[in-house]
């Protein structure tokens, strides 16, 4: 057996073990067994048809690599379908994680309102000061308004809320680039809260 064939088979198995890790036992075992069978059949077919083990190894490698996106999609579909059919009771750990997520979302919303109000207040001051600070005033007004608007918008459309937060952070960061050390982490916290809120809706039930 050539080194390429051995490596391709090992990589395919290792990848299969990785993307099936954490899945329900029956799905995990079935997929791993099916890939094992396919690998054996592929090698056997090559021997029977007189193909070199290097050629077979190359084919297996290509099949493995080009199938990675579909493997990821498949894994996600299995997890979604299992989550949708999960029993009514929630494990304590899951409940704790949900509460922590909810708290984070609330705090980030409060931070968005406070920061937004501060930026708007500051913008008014900059407009009063005059022409030199106009660009800073405009950027702070836009960012402040977007941050404040993201909170009520989030109740109806969490994705639009996340987009507003992202826009606010980007506008501010571009004009006040020297404050990146503060703006970037704050922006990530705000965007994280908005994004978590957009994900907090129950997952769709997959169709057959």
């Amino acid at each position, binding site marked *: 057996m050539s080194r390429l064939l051995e490596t391709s088979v090992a990589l395919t198995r290792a990848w299969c073990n990785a993307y099936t890790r954490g899945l329900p036992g029956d799905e995990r075992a079935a997929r791993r*067994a*099916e890939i094992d*069978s*396919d690998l054996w*059949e592929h090698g*056997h077919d090559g021997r029977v048809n007189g193909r070199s083990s290097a050629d077979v190894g190359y*084919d297996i490698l290509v*099949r493995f690599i080009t199938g990675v*996106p579909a*493997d990821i999609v498949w894994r996600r579909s299995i997890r979604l379908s299992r989550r949708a059919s999960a029993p009514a009771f929630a494990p304590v750990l899951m409940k704790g994680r949900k509460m922590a997520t909810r708290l984070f979302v609330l705090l980030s919303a409060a931070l968005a309102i406070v920061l937004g109000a501060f930026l708007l207040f500051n913008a008014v001051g900059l407009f009063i000061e005059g022409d030199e600070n106009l660009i800073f005033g405009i950027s702070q007004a836009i960012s402040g308004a977007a941050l404040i608007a993201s909170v009520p918008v989030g109740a109806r459309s969490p994705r639009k809320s996340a987009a507003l937060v992202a826009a606010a952070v980007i506008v501010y960061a571009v004009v006040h680039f020297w404050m990146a050390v503060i703006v970037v982490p704050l922006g990530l916290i705000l965007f994280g809260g908005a994004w978590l809120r957009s994900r907090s809706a129950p997952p769709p039930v997959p169709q057959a």
Partner: protein
Amino acid sequence: MRRRSDQLLPLELDIVEAALDLRADGEPNFHGFALAKRLQQLASAKSLTSHGTLYKALARLERAGLLVSSWEDPEIAASEGRPRRRFYQVTGQAEVAVEVARRLQQQEPARRAPKLQPS
């Protein structure tokens, strides 16, 4: 545009047609690799369908009721010194799906595929 969950992909149609072709050749029970070989022959392709694409499509077709699967007797596999095979078979619903697809292709060659019915 996002694909509707009840529509067959072109690959899935190809799989069902390849499965019917295998059945017509006296192989009603086929495993994934055999199907990949038949797909390659029918499409005159250079390479076999990837693992991920093939087995994801087979799982989806099985959930939709166009295929059924069963695992081989482990003693048979052990006696031949190889891993157990998972065999698939086409159902009657699959033949209907292919027929509908052929009719649709004659009407609208560029577009729609038949809908999957939940099993």
